[in-house]
């Protein structure tokens, strides 16, 4: 369980990106965080694996107080949390399978890391992860020669190869076209249903959030303004989150019935 209690984040330049955030996320939930650009979505998600430090309040993940972690204990903690990025963050000039295997780098012995010696189990794990996102046949291609959608699925496979309990995804489909965005979101959904991995996704396309997530957290200027099941979202609530009516920019696909 991830538990925020009155958490603040004030950046060194004085910007308050999280303002008294309190929430609980159970194991296995599929949560979408929505809000305007600059609302604090990335900040929130990155405090969970301490890529960003909080400045006040309490944050625990499965009972561990995140703010006390550092050095070795922090690295050990991070192994249970996968992360997927808007810009994929793959290692360029390297094959797909090596990219996926890089998720094991934190676990392996140093000589294995230095010489790139991955065990048979690791390789099978990597290949299975690729299979789960449907791009097994690309395993030996160079990662930077794939399409954006395929690259994001490699990134997802890499995260799966890490065997995490939680996956944090920061705008994972913002760089993709609507069709690929759907495919990648389906992958997240399927992984969530088959494995009980908690999935927390930042997303600024409201329609995708509503279509795939079970729970929506809306933030505005660092504050949580909505937290509840997807089913009870209304036009009014969205207006509250965005401070205005929705525009086409807030949707991945064109509005069909407007």
């Amino acid at each position, binding site marked *: 369980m991830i538990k925020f209690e009155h958490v603040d984040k004030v950046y060194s330049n004085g910007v308050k990106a999280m303002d008294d955030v309190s929430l609980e996320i159970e194991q296995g939930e599929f949560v979408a965080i929505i809000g305007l650009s600059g609302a604090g979505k990335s900040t929130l998600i990155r405090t969970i*694996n301490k*890529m960003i430090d909080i400045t006040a309040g309490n944050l625990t993940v499965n009972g561990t107080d995140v703010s006390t972690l550092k050095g070795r204990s*922090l*690295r*050990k*903690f*991070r*192994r249970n*949390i*996968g*992360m997927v*990025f808007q*810009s*994929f*963050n*793959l*290692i*360029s*000039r*390297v094959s797909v399978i*090596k990219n996926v295997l*890089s*998720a094991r*780098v*934190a676990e392996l012995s140093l000589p294995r*890391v*230095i010489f790139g010696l991955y065990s048979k189990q690791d390789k099978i794990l990597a290949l299975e992860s690729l299979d789960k996102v449907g791009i097994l046949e690309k395993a030996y291609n160079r990662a930077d020669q794939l399409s954006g959608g395929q690259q994001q699925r490699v*990134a997802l496979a*890499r995260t799966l190869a*890490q065997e995490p309990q939680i996956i944090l995804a920061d705008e994972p489909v913002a760089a993709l076209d609507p069709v690929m965005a759907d495919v990648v979101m389906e992958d997240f959904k399927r992984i969530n249903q088959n494995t009980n991995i908690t999935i927390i996704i930042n997303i600024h396309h409201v329609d995708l959030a509503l279509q795939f997530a079970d729970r929506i957290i809306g933030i505005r200027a660092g504050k949580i303004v909505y937290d509840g099941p997807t089913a009870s979202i209304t036009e009014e609530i969205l207006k509250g989150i965005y401070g205005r009516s929705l525009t086409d920019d807030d949707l991945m696909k064109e509005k069909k019935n407007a």
Partner: protein
Amino acid sequence: MLEDIVHIFFPRTYTLGNGKTIREKFNIIPYLVIVFAIFVFFCAYFTGTNLPLLAERGWNFFDILHKMIPPNWGYWDTMQKAMLDTINMSLLGSVFGCAIALPVSFYLSSNFKLNKTYLVTHRFALSLLRTLPTLVLASFLRMVLGIGALAGTLAISVFSYTICVKMMYEYIETLDMGAYEALESTGASRFRCIWGAVWPQVKGFFFSTFLYCFESNVKSAAILGYVGAGGIGLNISGQLTLRKYDNLGLVLISMTLTIMILEAVARYARRKLVTG
């Protein structure tokens, strides 16, 4: 048109339709371009006064060139030993210099947010070291270490180190740190993040920098002999003072060929490294 040119030097303030104003950012580059142009003009002006002298004496050069042909093949044995020495010095120096440069260049790249003071002081020391021509360094080392290839090798190592570190950290700083961040988020230590995510992206550039150092070191190693730091330069200066131009001819031909072959090999290796 003319007005736009003038405003390259004097930033404007723009007023938008809704009354908002935005001031253009001051750009120093156009001024620098002009200063540079003036500088180049003066350089050309001052060297230009020497042109008649070049026309007068220049012919001596062809005279010497003529005496080099045919080269004296009897000099081959002495020469090829010195040549091998030169290549060895350059290779050894480049390997040492670049091998030490590799880990250091990561320390000096600002994207890993390592110790700032260390970064600035080391970079400053490096730029000081770079102002020292290899030749000066070699003559200094020769005084300390005595005549021979050791002084030359060491001078070449230091030179390769300063060049390689600079090229590398500047390259590393242009890299996208996304892959590093991704590995960091899996809980890998800093060394593992660098080894797993950054090294694969820089290794082609590193080897190509190494090859570049090696190539240019063969050329500079040829000069180091002048100050007694070993290698073929000893023979060049020696044969030149003895006016044995036919021996010199052989040295020059072999040097040209050696460098051409090395460049071809390096080019091939580089292509393999970059695409492979």
